[in-house]
């Protein structure tokens, strides 16, 4: 790519300008069937196998709204403290594009299902309230792949192929009001907002919110104004930012780019920009100045949505414990610091630790394994913690074996290695690898005697009262037992045999 990159370092940019953010998030709902037809929604099916006359827009086909999707959208709205419309309509958004079978998208326009909510997020110990303007329901488009050409976009491609499996999957769009006053925390606030939203979706069970599979996609709006200015600057919209890290990078990158343009006396063009995961930079897309007229009008093929207020109240009453409340409860139950809790959230370990605790492990141990050895392993292999081939129940069993003295921490790490390698359950691995602590006193004493005989100098020092020298002897026992001895017991026995009181 040959974009001339001129950016102002972040700190300098923030000294001169104040950022205003806006986030539009699309969440694919995890309904069994599509928004307006009965086709399945499973991810990864062979192209164009989950399609029917309705989602292919064959002549004469008509949409039927998915009640489950409407319910999920209302639950999202309630969890975001929104007002739920008593009557609203779908609208057609008209534009031509090959991955949109009808050449219009059924969406909502001036009558969204949920309005005026908020979501509190915590950044750097500070709570930032993000106002939600609207939450509405629409359908996803098909997925285009543009083959050939330099940009991977439709212009200049040799040819394009379209997979309509995604066409018609229910999509909830959540739009924030402009978020001002975040200052240099802007990138973190953006990330924290998306993180919080993702946890909220999970706790509601409405979506699997996998950003890498596109079931949660984010458009990031950024504008800058000179410090002290009263009027907000022109914004850009960066499309398809598909990881939490990218959300943060996109905001940061756009602040740095816009600051450079403005500082040069340039003008920000209201436009769509594309985010590049590899470089973290954005490039110019479609200019909003040549924006399309979508010719919205109420969808005549569908009846208005009119959720009964009593039903909405019932849904409100049945909402699960929401993430903030849950985190506060867990933090108190586990007795961990804010910092540790934040670390667990960042590592996506909260659910795993909770499940491990539920399987019987003490919180401290559960946290130790997930945030220590397992986080390291996940990091090394570049997988998400939750995607490691290991179950919370297995960790709980390892913790139990350590607590009972059957395993040392060192042996436990070998068990984890076996678990990751798919060698079976913790007990099977202990058995197969012969990892159980030497608990037969006779066997242990035999090893100790060998070690004492081979290290007469150290043994003499201990006899002479230099108890600290016992450490080397314990090390020798551990080595001779290939780590399977219980170090504490070995120490006791060494001191005992050398006639020193423990």
């Amino acid at each position, binding site marked *: 790519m040959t974009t001339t990159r001129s950016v102002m370092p972040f700190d300098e940019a923030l000294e001169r300008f104040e950022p205003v953010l806006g986030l539009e998030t699309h969440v694919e709902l995890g309904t069994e069937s599509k928004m307006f037809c009965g086709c399945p929604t499973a991810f990864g099916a062979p192209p164009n196998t989950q399609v029917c006359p309705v989602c292919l827009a*064959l*002549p*004469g086909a008509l949409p*039927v*709204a998915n009640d489950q999707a409407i319910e999920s959208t209302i639950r999202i709205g309630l969890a975001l403290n929104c007002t739920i419309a008593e009557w609203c309509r779908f609208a057609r958004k008209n534009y031509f594009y090959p991955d949109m079978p009808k050449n219009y998208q059924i969406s909502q326009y001036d009558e969204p299902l949920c309005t005026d909510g908020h979501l509190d997020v915590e950044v750097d110990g500070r709570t930032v309230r993000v106002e939600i303007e609207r939450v509405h329901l629409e359908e996803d488009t098909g997925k285009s792949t543009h083959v050939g050409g330099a940009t991977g976009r439709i212009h200049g491609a040799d040819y394009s192929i379209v997979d309509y499996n995604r066409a018609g999957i229910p999509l909830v769009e959540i739009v924030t009001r402009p978020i001002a006053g975040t200052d240099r925390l802007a990138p973190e606030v953006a990330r924290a907002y998306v993180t919080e939203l993702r946890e909220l979706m999970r706790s509601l069970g409405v979506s699997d919110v996998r950003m890498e599979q596109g079931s949660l996609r984010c458009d990031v709006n950024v504008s800058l104004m000179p410090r002290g200015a009263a009027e907000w600057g022109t914004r850009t919209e960066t499309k398809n930012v598909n990881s939490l890290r990218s959300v943060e990078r996109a905001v940061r990158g756009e602040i740095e780019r816009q600051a450079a343009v403005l500082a040069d006396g340039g003008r920000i063009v209201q436009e769509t920009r594309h985010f590049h995961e590899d470089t973290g930079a954005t490039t110019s897309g479609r200019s909003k100045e040549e924006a399309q007229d979508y010719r919205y009008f109420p969808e005549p*093929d569908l009846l208005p949505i009119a959720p009964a207020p009593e039903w909405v109240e019932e849904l409100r009453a049945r909402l699960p414990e929401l993430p903030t409340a849950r985190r506060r409860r867990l933090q108190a139950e586990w007795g961990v610091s804010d910092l540790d809790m934040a670390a667990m959230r960042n590592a996506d370990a909260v659910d795993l630790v909770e499940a491990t605790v539920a399987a019987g492990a003490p919180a401290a141990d559960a946290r130790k394994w997930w945030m220590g050895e397992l986080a390291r392993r996940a990091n090394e292999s570049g997988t998400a913690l939750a995607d490691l081939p290991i179950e919370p129940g297995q960790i709980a069993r390892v913790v139990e074996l350590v607590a009972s003295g059957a395993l040392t921490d060192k042996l436990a790490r070998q068990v984890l290695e076996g678990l990751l390698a798919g060698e079976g359950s913790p007990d099977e691995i202990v058995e197969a690898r012969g990892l159980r602590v030497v608990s037969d006193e006779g066997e242990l004493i035999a090893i100790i005697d060998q070690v004492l005989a081979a290290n007469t100098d150290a043994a003499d020092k201990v006899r002479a009262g230099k108890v600290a020298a016992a450490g080397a002897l314990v090390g020798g026992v551990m080595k001779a037992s290939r780590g399977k001895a219980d170090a504490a017991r070995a120490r006791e026995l060494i001191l005992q045999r050398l006639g020193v009181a423990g």
Partner: protein
Amino acid sequence: MSLTHRNAAELGALMAAGEVSAVEVAQAHLDRVAEVDSRVHAFLHVAAESALEQARAVDARRAAGEKLGPLAGVPIAHKDVFTTRDMPTTAGSKILEGYRPPYDATVTTRLREAGLVILGKTNLDEFAMGSSTENSAYGPTRNPWDLDRVPGGSSGGSSAAVASYQAPLSTGTDTGGSIRQPAAVTGIVGMKPTYGGSSRYGLIAFASSLDTPGPFARTVLDAALLHEAFSGHDVMDTTSIHAEVPPVVEAARQADVAGLRVGVVREFGGEGYQPGVTARFQEAVELLESLGAKVTEVSCPSFTYALPAYYLIAPSECSSNLARFDGMRYGLRVADDGTRSAEEVMALTRAAGFGAEVKRRIMLGTYALSSGYYDAYYGSAQKVRTLIARDFEAAFHQVDVLISPTTPTTAFPIGERADDPMAMYLADLCTIPANLAGNAAISVPCGRADEDGLPVGLQIMAPVLGDDRCYRVGAAVEKAFEDRWGGPLLKEAPSL
């Protein structure tokens, strides 16, 4: 009487009694099609083989002792705007030439379930846009009364098929009068049910909030039997009404108007109405009075704005509904020579595939919906629509049904209005209000105009879900007129 000149109820009874087989009935009609349709051009596709196969299946079921419905084995001509998995479906457009849908419309399914034998698909104005069938990409259909005249439209193939005895029944769709106006100008019965009373699933959309499938027949009872066969709630069409089909067959048999309050719409009449149409309508009013109906004049002031409102709403919806015809997934695709972009292929395909009237309406609708014009055009038209519905409501507080001429003139010569869209649009002047408000309305023959000897239709409008009233009044008028004429009006048509 030959089988083709019998009505559907009679054919059903003859077959039930074992006096004639469904195969014989189907063959007689296929022979008739072969004999006359080269002159009428009612059909775009004749499905002789599958018709005979369906007929054989009906005969076999009857032979096996199955209890069949009143229309089992009766042939029907199906408007080529309903999808059929075993026949091409073109909507009268080049853009769908040769297209075979993978699924049946709900109406098609219900015809099959009722044992009706589908003879083929009938001609129409492209995407049901027009009042003459001249806008078909496959050439015009001709009026059996005068082959140089139009059979009405958009369902002109279906009206001509029934009026020329090629089928006792046919299906149509009525968006602004596309069933009632062709029925009127060919001297037969055509009914637009209450909007949502019949399913639109598999009906290729013109204007979603107006499109209504309905029946054509030579008698009011036949129309009611067909109406009952394919109407009723459909889970695939959420705008279809959750209610029992009104008792239309019972009403058609009742045929009684004594004590009924009938309103004449003041706004329909006078200038622009052919004298023969006005005269026959006046006769119908007198006839109703003689039958014991109480006729009064009723004013529906907003009806004056129905035509302009319709020509904003229908094109707006069609501009969006027809967006899917882009050459990407089915139908015509032109200029895909490997050098052009998807956008160019879409544009060139649509330029080549759509006819002039369809393009005109897409452009009208695109304009009416565009940013800055929406409120003035589409928004205002929707308000007019509300006012028209209120006029109907107020009128139905005073009367049980409203009547008017179905269309201001008799069948016009082919080509006469082809270059004058406004003149063409006026053909639907009286029929459009019922579409905008969703009411039920029927057209029944009420004689021939003195000046040209061509049929005139009487429109009877009823409240939403009051479809049975249309049949009740229609059947009474039919009976009284036939007594006066010594038989159905269609007897007076020249034999082909």
